[in-house]
């Protein structure tokens, strides 16, 4: 079914919308969630939560790219589940590594209580990504949006793993400088 048709089902409040979404993007969403979560049960929970959130979000929202809209929601759901389980250390190794890497963009003595508008920060990160090369942008997104492993990114982009690590490290350095320049208290 075409994305537009699925959207129309949502707008018509037809519950087949969820079934069709599951049929078309269920596997994809599980992959996204699976990169963040360690167990199948958690992945299923994240995907189930996502469909509910999608149902509540559309309408009024009309996503331009349905697949990525789903990806964003399932990613958030998965991350929430991960956070609730942090005490049990049940997150996947890739997520923990990705977070550690992103920690390089934050100074050790930065104030963790500093209130940050996630939306504003997201807009700034977008501006930052627009300033780097397409390859850096793509690898950054694969790593920190999809939480793909370096090995997977290397295969996907035709690079060696060490090359991927280098590119990511360089991009994180640029991001940190950018955020400081934008006035974030890192």
């Amino acid at each position, binding site marked *: 079914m075409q994305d537009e048709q699925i959207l129309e089902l949502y707008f018509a409040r037809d519950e087949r919308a969820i079934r069709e979404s599951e049929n078309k993007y269920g596997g994809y969403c599980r992959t996204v969630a699976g990169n963040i979560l360690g167990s199948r049960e958690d992945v299923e929970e994240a995907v189930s939560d996502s469909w509910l959130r999608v149902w509540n979000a559309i309408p009024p929202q009309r996503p331009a790219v349905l697949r990525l809209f789903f990806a964003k929601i399932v990613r958030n759901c998965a991350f929430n589940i991960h956070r609730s389980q942090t005490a049990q250390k049940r997150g996947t190794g890739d997520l923990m590594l990705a977070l550690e890497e992103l920690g390089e963009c934050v100074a050790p003595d930065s104030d963790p209580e500093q209130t940050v508008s996630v939306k504003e920060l*997201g807009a700034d990160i977008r501006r930052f990504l627009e300033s780097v090369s397409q390859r850096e942008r793509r690898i950054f997104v694969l790593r920190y949006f999809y939480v793909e492993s370096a090995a997977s990114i290397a295969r996907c982009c035709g690079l060696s793993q060490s090359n991927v690590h280098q590119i990511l490290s360089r991009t994180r350095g640029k991001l940190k400088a950018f955020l400081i320049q934008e006035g974030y208290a890192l």
Partner: protein
Amino acid sequence: MKREDIFRAIGELDSEFLEQCEAPAAPRRKLWLIPLVAALIAALCATAAAGGLGRVSHGEVAEVTANNHYSIGAYSFSQESQELEVFVDLQLENLAPDYVHQLYLPTICEDLEVTGLQRDGASLDPGAEQMTRFLISWNHPDYKFKQNITFEQRTIRYWRQSEQKDTVPDYLPGTDVESKMLRWDDHEAFLVTIGPSKDDLSQSHRLYWTDGYYVFILRCPYGIGEEWMRAAVESVARVDTLQDIQKELAQRVEEGQEEMWEDLKRVANSSPEIFTKQFHPVSGHVERLENGMPKLSLEPTDTTGAPEKVEMMIFPFVAEEKDFVFHSDCIPTFVEAPEGVTKGVACYYSVNWAYELGGRVEYWQIARGASLHYTNHSYAPADSVQVETVTIGNYELLQVTCEEDQRQTIMGKELYWMDDDYRYILICPLAMTDAEILEILDSLDRI
């Protein structure tokens, strides 16, 4: 600010921007293998599932071989080189032929490039042409194909393993590569058309698509149309277990055999003249082989001028089943119903020693349209096989003479010819005279 804030903020990137981020550089013409693969996968990432790659590193392969038997092997991906390869170590069942012509496709692999089936004896002489029958029956623990699609690939030049290998169907320097997206209602696929090059005039397609979890690669011949590709793409479906596939296959094989068996009996009962026209007066009977396939055995009652014993395989075909598989004890082969023929009988002759080879028999085949395909000669070293065109009576035949096999026990020749409706193969002793052969040929009046 915490690192989690950055992670969450990245999740706020809007969908359109994310899509742009995923987009690779546009595919280029005249690409070498590695960058092409990267570009293809990148394109797939852009169009489908960036998160879906990288799941399978080893597993089982279930294949349906040409005669509907299946075999299971293991595959593993070698990452020693940038060109990742799939090695298939087929462990064939007793009922299956011990040679599998092709690694059947599509192949589920992630961002891998299948560079060829690594298997002893899978090579041919320089300049030889390979006939490949793709039986689209590739199965995977997570997937199956709802339908089997059989077709012949156009010829490919294929070199011996011991010699240069870069002409194994793959990219060559200077090979033209074009690509485009195919979009249907619910599917989209990335189509790459390869060739020709100065060394290889053939062309082929590679079709890449994904269901968001795996990337599929289907190699298919140039003559295949987009509708066929669509059918292939749509035919893939997730299944629960490999056992389900096997059960279904076993059932299908059984049903197919029953159908063929009934057809054969009908033909045998309704057209006795078919048999007596072939050689000499014969007596014969139909029996079911151990593998469940029907076999007609004939004993000439008058052996004058004929081989001492002849086994003849007769099988009916109908137009809906373009390719018919038939079996002797050890010989799987095919006859394709010619276009426009809706029903009929095709025949296969062999003197009995041919069945005693105990192994595979490879064959030459004359396809309609005079394209010649060579599969393999396993029972004879390549340099002991001569191929020539001979004229016997009014017949122009392709004669393949095998002077001796590696065990130096078999000698014989095979004759191939065709009329407007049928193709024929005659395997006969080396000593058989032209007059004897002509008698056989003349006996094959149109049925």
